[in-house]
Every structure is written in C-alpha cells, then in structure tokens.
C-alpha cells in the first residue's frame, strides 16, 4: 500500500469528506468562494484600515515632543475657544516658561490669498509662516529658503493640484503685503491629520512680516533635554494660574484621538466585512443541506453498517470544514496580496504589515473556518439524527 494511502487510512473521515466535497464540484466551489469573500472582507478591511491609519499617522512623526499653545478667546456669549492671538510679549513669557524647549511661533495671516502666475486664486490654500519649518517637514524637492528671502515652500497638495514646481512663481497677498514669490521647495505629503495642514499650505518666511501677530506657538522638547509633560506643566502654571488664558494641546494627544477614531471606523468596516461571513455561513448550510439530501441513502447505509450518530455528524461537519479550509487557503494569500498592494500605494512598502493588521487576517481566517463549521452543524445534525430506516426507503 502506498504511504499516502496508508496515512489516509488513519484519517478516514477526512478522506470520505474530501471525496464528497469534490463530488459536486461546482456547488462546493461556490461555497468556497463565499468563504473567500468573507475572509478577504475581514482581513482586507483590517489590513487596508491599518495601512490607511499608519499612512495618516505618519504625519505626526515629526511632532514627537511637541505641544501647540494658543491663546484662549472668551467671546461674550460662549465658552472659551482657542482662537485668540499671542502677542510678542506673550511669546516672550512662553519662551521663559518653556526653558530649554524650542518655541516656534506660527503666523496665520488673515485675508490670505495665493494666486498662480496666471492669476487664478487658490481658495483652499492657506498661508502659514514659522521659523524653521524644516524642523517638522521634509522636502520632496528644492530647498528651504532663508528667512529673509522672497521664496516659499509649498505643501504637496498645493503643488500637485496646481502643477507647481520648484522655480515657479506664486503671488501671496495678506493684510500686510502682496508680493510675488519663487517656489523654493515642495514638501513631502503629510496627510490630512498633519497638525499644521502642511499639504495645503504655503510657507512664507517669517522675515516677510514686519509686525507679526502669532496665532499659536509650537513648543518642542527634545527627548534628551527634558520631558514635554514638565514643560507643559510650567507653561500651564505661567499662563493658566487664576484665569485660563492659553490652551495647551499635546500633539501626541491629537494623534491618539485620531488613532482612536480610525480604529472605530475600522471596527465598523470590519463589522460590515463580518456580515459577508454570515452570508458565507448561510451558503455553507445550504450547500451541505443539498449534499445530505442527495445522498440520504448513502448516509442511511453508513448508519446501518455501524456508523454512530457522532460519526455521521463528524463526517458532515468535516465536509463543511473542508469548504472552510479551502476558502481560507485561497482567501488568506489573496488578502495578503491585496494588503501588499495597499501598503505599496499608501506606505511605499508592500511588506509594511503591522501586527494588528496581521491579526485581522488571522481573525478573518479563524472566522472563515469557524463559520464553515458552524454552517455545517445544522445539516450534520439533520443527517445524523435521521432514522436509518427512513433514509433507506
């Protein structure tokens, strides 16, 4: 006896089940496809969501140890809003309080407009000014201009949507000036979570503003120099003693909030994906009901020649499980392939799988197998509890 056949003899239920599954191959294939869809839905949503989350959260990478400080405004009729302005004097106090931490005031001029050389106004583009944006951002092309030069750095979306490249010119007008600037550099894409919305901003050197008012300030602590928490503590003490006058927000908190939001969206989508697994379970049940109805006599013979109810139950469940195994065997590589494509598109690295993402793939596989077994239970119970005499009529 050949070795394989001999081994197979020790797992007779699987052998019998496999033969039966291959009997109605079209029907079995459809059930397998249903499982594949379910596995891909759960695993793919998991991987895709992870890649998207990572892609978005990358924007926070340069902002480790950064908090934003903005002046609180107290409108007559409402709660405090962080949209006041910081005066030069307040920035000075902030620098004192922050100690060794870097304080980078940010100007967002009012009535800002950016125009292309042919005069088209770019409505969604905001003007920002801060010293040393290179602290947070990398360039895709060009270089950061000197603080006094007539040159700007533009965000990736600004460049892409308006076909702007290094060397092109744009006109920037604000309350205090209207000047033409050379594009000195284009930033790398940051995603919409970026704290300064750099993608759709034009960075004007601070030297262009004679008398700037600051809308917010960034406080950055180097990990070696001290802790952001202590710095934030000192700033709070300085400004928010009796009255709260500034709003301090750690970028890492913003990041966590974002991450949580993404996670919830992901879970919601996973729930939708799981619905397709339920559909797969119904398909398996239907397939197995048809299968047992077709071979009622055979199953009756098995009972007659000494197969117990458990043996028949197991046989039918194993058949359903084999459909699940086939679905998972096709679904998992397919999911990983899709995940690799998404990773490549969003993160630039096909293999940028995260542990969480892979856990979703495992979850999809486990659920795929689980629902196949679950879907097989009722038909198996029906087949096993059928009186052999009736089955043999």
């Amino acid at each position: 006896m050949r070795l394989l056949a001999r081994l197979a003899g020790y797992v007779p239920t699987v052998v019998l089940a496999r033969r039966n599954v291959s009997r109605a191959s079209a029907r079995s294939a459809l059930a397998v496809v249903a499982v594949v869809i379910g596995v891909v839905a759960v695993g793919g949503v998991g991987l895709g969501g992870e890649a998207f989350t990572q892609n978005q959260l990358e924007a926070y990478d340069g902002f480790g140890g950064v908090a934003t400080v903005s002046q609180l405004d107290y409108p007559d009729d409402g709660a405090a809003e962080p949209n006041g302005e910081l005066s030069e004097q307040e920035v000075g106090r902030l620098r004192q309080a922050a100690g060794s931490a870097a304080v980078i005031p940010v100007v967002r001029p009012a009535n800002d407009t950016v125009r292309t050389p042919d005069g088209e106004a770019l409505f969604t583009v905001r003007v920002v000014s801060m010293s040393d944006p290179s602290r947070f951002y990398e360039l895709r092309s060009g270089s950061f201009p000197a603080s006094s030069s007539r040159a700007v750095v533009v965000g990736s979306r600004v460049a892409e949507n308006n076909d702007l490249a290094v060397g092109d010119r744009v006109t920037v007008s604000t309350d205090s000036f209207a000047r033409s600037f050379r594009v000195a550099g284009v930033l790398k894409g940051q995603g919409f979570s970026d704290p300064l919305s750099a993608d759709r901003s034009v960075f004007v050197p601070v030297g262009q503003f004679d008398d700037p008012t600051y809308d917010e300030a960034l406080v950055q602590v180097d990990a070696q120099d001290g802790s952001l928490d202590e710095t934030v503590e000192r700033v709070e003490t300085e400004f928010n003693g009796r009255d709260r006058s500034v709003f301090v927000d750690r970028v890492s908190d913003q990041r966590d909030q974002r991450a949580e939001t993404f996670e919830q969206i992901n879970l919601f989508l996973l729930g939708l994906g799981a619905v397709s697994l339920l559909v797969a379970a119904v398909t398996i049940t239907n397939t197995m009901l048809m299968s047992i109805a077709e071979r009622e006599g055979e199953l009756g013979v098995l009972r007659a020649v000494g197969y117990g109810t458990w043996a028949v139950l197991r046989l039918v469940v194993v058949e359903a499980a084999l459909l699940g195994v086939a679905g998972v065997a096709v679904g998992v590589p397919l999911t990983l392939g899709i995940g690799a494509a998404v990773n490549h598109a969003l993160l630039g690295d096909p293999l940028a799988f995260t542990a969480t993402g892979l856990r979703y793939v495992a979850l999809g596989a486990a659920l795929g197998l689980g629902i196949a077994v679950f879907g097989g239970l009722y038909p198996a119970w029906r087949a096993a509890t059928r009186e052999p005499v009736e089955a043999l009529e």
Partner: protein
Amino acid sequence: MATADEPEPILRGQDVVREYRTGGQTVRALDGVDFAIRPAEFVAVVGPSGSGKSTLLNLLGLLDVPTSGRVELGGEDVSTFDQGRRTRTRKRDVGFIFQSYYLIPTLTALENVEVPRLLDRTPVETRERATELLERVGLGDRLDHAPDELSGGQKQRVATARALINDPNLLLADEPTGNLDRDTGDSILDLFDDLRTEQDVAVVTVTHDEYVADAADRVVRLIDGEVRG
C-alpha cells in the same frame, strides 16, 4: 418444532407488531409475528408487495424497533438498547445487502467494501480483508473501479462483500438476486452456502424468486403483516 439439540437462536421475536403512523392513519405493517433465527440457517421471506417483508428485515437488523412485542438478541430485549448500543450491535453482528445497493459513488469498489470498517483505523488489515472478499465474489480484477463502471450484478457483489467485511453472524439481504441473471444468482447462493457451512452465518433473504426460496432451509410467507403457512 425446536428440538433439544438445536442451537440457541441468534435472534428471536415474539408477537412482534410494527405500526406506521402517516397522517391520521395507522398502518400495521407487521401484525403479531413470531420468529427465531438460528446460526447457519437460511431463511427466505416471501410475500406480495407491501406485506411487511422489508419491515421484518429492518427489525431483524436492529435498524428498527417494534411498536409492541419483543425482539430478543441473546435473551435481551433490543428495545432496551439505546441508539449507540444498537449501532454497535449492528456493526458487530449484522451484514446488510440492500436492494438498491447504496454504494458510495466517490469510492472505488475496494473502498466501498472497506466503508464499514473505515473508522476502525486499521487500514492495512481492512484492505487485506476487503481485497480477499472482492476476490471471493469474483471481482478481484475490479478493485479500483468506481461503482458507475460496474454492471448491476457487479455492484450487487460489491454490496455483498461490504456486508461481510465485519464477519457478521447474521446476513440480511433484500432481494439479492432480484436483478441478476441465473448464473450470478447461483454464485451468490453458493457464497451464502459457503458462509453458512464455514462460519455459521445465518442468512435471511427477502425474495420473489421461487428458485431462491427452494434453496432455503425455511420459507416465511408474509401476507398483510402476518405469517401464513
């Protein structure tokens, strides 16, 4: 009728009644039947269609239990057996040859014969025994054929080999020669004879064939669920 030196019956039935309830109606398929099946006996069950022959065979094979009356196996009332024990008893003691064979189409002739013993996980011994049985019924050259590559008579012989794989004490056959030519029928009857003389197997067969009935030790004639004559 029973003499002192006759062996103890394998199976005994007393006043066996089997009723089927369908819709509002009750059909009495067996109406107070007594029987005893002894080792090595060859019993033919004859009677018109609907007279209760298959019902009787099912009761003999512990596939079914009577509505009233007793069916005893080794002195024990089989209606006290639970499902599992009846299944184990069938596996150990009874071989069935069904009228429509019920071979599994995805398995070869050899594998079909092995089916009753597949779960025993003794693949080597099972295969040897199955091969031997198929050779014995003259199908040594058809081991790897699928059922749909076999003629009616060949399927019948596969079903017979399958019934014998667990070395039953009692072989039950529903019209085993029904669709067969005389030569094949003869070879099946010869096989029954061999089993009886070599292994004391009792054979109970339902038949319409007078020729089979003539070969039997005893003929049970059923009419409307009762034994006549």
